């Protein structure tokens, strides 16, 4: 097999998640204007861009939470436009939303129990979560709403990982967190990525994900304006953000 053949064979694998020409709108106002995005197996793809670029909407469309007005959403090669988000989540397309999406009035343990729909034992869910995040074990009887921002994000991640997703989508993991906590969380994302999970991560602060992502796409005003390896994009990022 030649080098070119090997490369072609690699890229020929069906991506786990693919968006083709996705357009989406809120009340008739177009926010996504033809997004093309590919998340292959065992790859970390970062979607970067300034505030209001449409990054969160892209994730919502991919997770089935927001309808696409046109274009195709392909999951494991199958067009799933109109699929119910819970159906997709149950099968392994997991979104950890901006703002964490935990139950603040339930304890850490009860929050983890909520993920038992994934056909995994409660004890197994808890043990996996505590193994990844020892701090959650110490806080397991504490109300989730009283945890620090970083711990809440850890809980959100633990809940997402408890379902053993095939594709993990992370929306602004760093939002409102101290840099040291963000680094800790992205270290975990990197270790999960090494296990072979496909990850689509959305971040406003591009530098944070540079070490974790294999591939990055820069979105500006509802369009993907740049794609490439994160290191190659680093120099052009500022001008992309500022519209230069």
């Amino acid at each position, binding site marked *: 097999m030649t080098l070119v053949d*090997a*490369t072609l064979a690699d890229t020929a694998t069906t991506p786990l998640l693919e968006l083709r020409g996705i357009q989406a709108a809120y009340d008739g106002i177009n926010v996504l204007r033809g997004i093309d995005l590919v998340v*292959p197996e*065992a790859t970390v793809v970062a979607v970067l861009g300034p505030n209001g670029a449409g990054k969160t909407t892209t994730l919502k469309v991919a997770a089935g939470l927001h309808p696409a007005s046109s274009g195709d959403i392909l999951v494991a*090669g199958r067009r799933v436009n*109109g699929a119910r988000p819970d159906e997709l989540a149950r099968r392994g397309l997991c979104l950890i939303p901006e703002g964490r999406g935990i139950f603040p009035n339930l304890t850490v343990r009860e929050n983890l129990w909520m993920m038992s729909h994934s056909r995994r034992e409660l004890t197994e869910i808890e043990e996996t979560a505590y193994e990844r995040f020892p701090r959650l074990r110490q806080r397991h009887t504490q109300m989730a709403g009283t945890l620090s921002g970083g711990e809440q994000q850890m809980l959100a991640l633990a809940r997402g990982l408890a379902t053993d997703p095939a594709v993990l989508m992370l929306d602004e993991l760093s939002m409102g967190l101290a840099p040291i906590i963000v680094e800790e969380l992205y270290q975990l994302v990197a270790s999960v990525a*090494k296990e*072979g999970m496909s990850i689509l991560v959305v971040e406003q602060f591009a530098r944070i994900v540079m070490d*974790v992502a294999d591939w990055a796409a820069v979105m500006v005003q509802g369009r993907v304006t740049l794609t490439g390896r994160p290191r*190659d994009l680093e120099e052009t990022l500022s001008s992309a953000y500022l519209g230069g």
Partner: protein
Amino acid sequence: MIEPVTTAAESGDPASAAESGDMASAAGSGNMAPAAGTGDMKRVEEFKAEIAEMRLRDPATGRDRQLLRLGVVLLVLGVVLTVAAYFMSHGTTNPLSQRDAIILALAGVAVSVAGGALFLRYSLATFLRFWLARLIYEQQTQTDRIVRQTDAAPR
């Protein structure tokens, strides 16, 4: 410092290293896609199978069915209105009430016609969709049969 994910290019795989070069030059093109890594194949295969088995309903079909039902309801409602108007007119000698009944009957006829049109439109669409699917299926079967015969024929 976050430990970077080891990419194929960094791991010394020559094939992927070549690919890495490709991608570096592709930065900014907006068209290149990232290559697949090597992941938990069992989970990925499971995921692919589950997605393939997933039952998806086209939102347009749901809307068609609702409009079809609306058509039936309007059709029946129109008839009921017309019959009610008849009895209303029959039971009175007051010309004013009789005129009201005539208007009600006419409205009933209009509602029935509209309902009938809706019913016809969407029942035809459902039938034609089924017919088209059947046609494609039969054509495919026919093609498969011809290919089998051609392959089996002595050369």
